[in-house]
């Protein structure tokens, strides 16, 4: 996990996953965040974040 922090794509992916979680959890729990645009943007960022994390993992496998 710590090694992956050296990979930029992983760091970017992690950042967007966390932002997405704030939007999605906020949408589910908080009244002020309960707006469809938060839900859709959160889902979009979550997909992007996961993609960025996984794409690097695949590269790693190729190298090993």
């Amino acid at each position, binding site marked *: 996990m710590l090694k992956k*922090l050296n990979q930029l794509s992983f*760091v970017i992916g992690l*950042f967007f996953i966390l*932002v997405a979680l*704030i939007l999605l959890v906020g*949408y589910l729990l*908080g009244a002020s*965040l309960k707006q469809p645009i938060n839900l859709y*943007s959160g889902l979009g960022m979550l997909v992007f974040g996961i993609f960025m994390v996984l794409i690097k993992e695949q590269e790693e496998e190729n190298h090993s």
Partner: protein
Amino acid sequence: MRLHFADYLIIFLYFVFVIAVGFIIKKRIKSSNDFLNSNRSIPLWITSLAFISANLGAQEVLGMVASGAKYGIMTVHFYWVGAIFAMVFLGVFMMPFYYGSKARSVPEYLKLRFDEKTRALNALTFAVMTVFSSGISLYALAKLLEVILGWNFDLCIWAAAGIVMVYTFMGGLTSAVYNEVLQFFLIVLGLSPLIIVALQDAGGWEGLKANLEPQMTHAWKYMDRAEHNKMGINFMSLIFGLGFVMSFGYWCTDFLVVQRAMIAKNMSAAQRTPIIAAIPKLLMPIIVVLPGVVAIALMQPALASKGYAIPMGANGEIDYTMTLPSLISHYYPTGLLGVGITALIASFMSGMAGNVTAFNSVFTYDIYQSYFVKDKSDKHYLNVGKMITLFGILFSIGTAYIAASFNNINDFLQLVFSFVNGPLFATFMLGMFWKRTSSEGAFWGLLGGTIAAAITHGLTLAEGKGGWIAPMFPISSGMGQAFIVASFSWLANFVITIVVSLLTKPKSDDELRGLVYSLTEKVYATEKKWYLRVGPLSIILLIITILLNFIFF
């Protein structure tokens, strides 16, 4: 506009990440080359996105949205006439010289090709401009946060500069470049929902066309005569002034962006950096021009029920600079509002860090090492580079306060940019492609071009600016004036350089090998797959760019 806990949490998370990137990179910094040049080891996808992101500063993002609102779709000319062609030219023709010459900076290339005095002139003007540009960006952000969020101006300046300082001091250029990539994605993903909801609210593209004057939705149709469009220029001035002189001058010679390509792993990657960067650049008008056009449409009587308006300035006219912040405020709820504000902060940091890292490379290599302290250990230059980073940030803070005192300093700086960047491209073009260009020709051409720019500005008057010699030629927009100033400065440099070169002695062929087109071994494609080669990629890009111009004609 009021932020809630979730918004602050997103902003805080962003700060944690950019500083963390600095910490992660820190352990890789062993030499001055690592700190100032990233040891030419950065992967292509990162150099490409950093190349575009270094240009995606707060002034670019806010300014292009503002221009979209003021001039309409014509603003795409900055991308589809200006940037793309220049970026392709840089990748195909100029990177082999920058990268192949092993120069560490653009001024150093000028020294190799010409002489010390041409390098000194370029290094000094560039160093001053980057610090001022960085400071004005800092001022713009602090002012924006003060106006829209009510945050303390001084606190914004010191906190924002402090964060940039921490990560550039620790990780140097690599840290700045890595954060630029994060900032690029944040700007794109943070502003994308805005354009979707705002455009939907305005009735889509058809709604825009129905509610706006036709000049606002056509890129070329009303460019036959200057008085037929809001920019106040005809297609000839646009193609020459913006498409050729200003864009090529900026994208092909400004070390701030060229540096991102110079740190690629090899020649092929260096050449492809601006070309790969041109792909997102081609689509960038969706993020930074279209919102402005939509904003103006939403203010038309038919869409008054949407309740949106760009705020008015103190002079009672529309304050176009506030277009993007006002759209964010209108459409983004708590949560996404934090993302939008973070995207604005990211655009500022991206611009500032880019300027600071380019400044410390040029200052350390082209000023300090060349004229003050030569032949010291690498450790010495690494420490100097780090100290210069601190000074660069402090100078930026100083210029931010100067900008706060003089409300027209930004206009002045933009003018100085057009004075310096406009003629510079003529020096490079002649220097790289005409071996007869002499060192004396380059120096006097550069100086003469800059003086010609000042004279042109003194004889033209636009929006109350210029005309300080005699307001003989009125121009309807400041942007049109900038194109004309740049055109005359380029022409003057071009002619003076040729004349002086013909009257003075050029360098020998041996000295120019690897620095001039006719004396350099041609680089042929080494990549096996066609889509990795510079040639096919460039042709596809240019075809798509031309098609987009036709579609939005």
